């Protein structure tokens, strides 16, 4: 049973992805990520000396500032800041630069669905651009559950509002291992099957959620390949002027 999507995509098709790094010259790292019409800019400043009052000084601290496109900062922005901060804390190696703060600033340029996943992807690319040491990258995808039970990937804003429920999922990126034994695994599953972050909205059945996880994992492999190609390309043909 097919779902009719307004832009003619199939249920597993992502919108066209575009990513560019080193857009901003003052920031230590920056990236712009767009999925279809959703566009997010991320900038990274750091590491700077000192941590905030309640933070552990034996580890590096990450601070996230989320700037919406219009309107005042409210609970939604605070929640996104908290989710982004905890996601980035789990991928960065925090013990390399203790007692420092790295600031990640997210500016929403346009919101057309799947905003939080785009922001997470942009923030990861900006961290790579700034050279902050990370364990692996985080790859983020939005899955929607339609009323018929079908799972649709990467919805637009209109689709998000019409669907029964949607979930933002963040996975570690897929690993290309040099060793023949394959990728490091935890609990018998490859590392890219684990979820770093999951935020759901709306009611869905438990089986729908597991189905979303499967589709999300398959899409995250595609996204990881896109990231890898993008990073390799930019590193070979870039001539960074200081």
């Amino acid at each position, binding site marked *: 049973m097919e779902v009719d999507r307004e832009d003619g995509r199939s249920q597993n098709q992502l919108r066209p992805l575009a990513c560019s790094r080193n857009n901003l010259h003052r920031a230590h790292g920056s990236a712009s990520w767009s999925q279809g019409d959703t566009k997010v800019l991320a900038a990274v400043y750091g590491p700077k000396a000192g941590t905030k009052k309640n933070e552990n000084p034996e580890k590096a601290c990450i601070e996230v500032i989320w700037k919406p496109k219009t309107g005042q900062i*409210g*609970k*939604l922005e*605070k929640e996104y800041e908290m989710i982004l901060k905890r996601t980035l804390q789990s991928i960065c190696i925090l013990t390399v630069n203790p007692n420092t703060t790295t600031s990640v600033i997210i500016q929403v340029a346009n919101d057309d669905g799947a905003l939080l996943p785009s922001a997470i992807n942009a923030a990861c690319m900006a961290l790579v651009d700034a050279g902050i040491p990370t364990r692996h990258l985080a790859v983020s995808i939005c899955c929607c559950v339609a009323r018929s039970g079908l799972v649709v990937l990467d919805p637009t804003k209109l689709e998000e*509002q019409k669907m029964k429920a949607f979930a933002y999922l963040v996975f570690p990126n897929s690993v290309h291992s040099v060793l023949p034994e394959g990728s490091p695994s935890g*609990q018998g599953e490859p590392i890219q099957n684990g979820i770093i972050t999951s*935020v*759901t909205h709306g009611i869905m*059945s438990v089986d729908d959620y597991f189905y979303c996880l499967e589709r999300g994992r398959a899409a995250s492999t595609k996204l990881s390949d896109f990231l890898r190609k993008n990073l390799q390309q930019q590193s070979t043909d870039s001539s960074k002027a200081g």
Partner: protein
Amino acid sequence: MGLPNASADLSTEVEVDAFRRLFPLRFFEKHLLESIRPDARPLGRARDTTIALGAVASANGSALAKIGSTTMLAAIKMEVRTPSMETPDEGCIAIDFHMPPICSPIFRPCRPSEAAPVVAKQLSDTILRHANLFPRLFIAAEISGMINLKELSLVSGKAAWMTYLDIYCLDADGALFDAALLAAVAAFSHLEIPVVSLNDDGKIVLSEEQGLSDREPVNKEKRKVNLGGIPFSLTCILHKNYILADPTAEEESIMETSVTMVLDSSSQLVSLYKPGGAVLAYTSAIQDCIALTRQRVKELQKVLEEAISGMEVD
């Protein structure tokens, strides 16, 4: 910190309390190896939960929920106002979550806590369940699983109920969202919509007694709100291969990866919230968490039913 020789030497000399403060993670891991926690709970068991309905006498509906030491007080007040133009036959619910300094030594009045707006938003998403993400304070939702907003309408286009739900945290000892949701749900099940009538100016007023016969009441009697699928939640902490249900504040601060699952009474997943964290959640861990949550939903349903039937006896 962390040289195994140093802690092995110290652990024979140092008292239990000092060891707990100096090496908190090792202290907990020693317990986890024996499948138990410092407060003698097995890993999958939640703390004792109690609900007291009608804690605030002046409110239309209220409840005090305690999970272990975590205490939440929820109160609902209702007011009549004109509904918005887009939804003329629906009422509104405004949810606010406060963490006053009484609840924890970390929070001071000048420095707003980071946890409060996040829990407030999670609560409004769970109770109202709408896909529209705008954080307006008065949220009108089309799809609401627990409460049908059309029930809150009095006269279509002219008058509807505006419901203010305030939740105060009195003691923060871990699992804040679980306790807040339980208090909110209990307050809604205790809520009685007051009787109102139309006076001569065409305004809605509260009917004082039943003896006022010259005014026809708009709604016949104090009635309860019909609740659809009631959501119940459980927060679990993931640490290596262990899953700990219902963490205390100490456990949450040491092992930071937490997953909150909200299931409603028909076992539909309302929310699965895992905001980052060092430990990755694999499918098997999620399935175990969901099984623990299902068990917890049954326990909480029983506690809520006992509290409601206790009130009705009075």
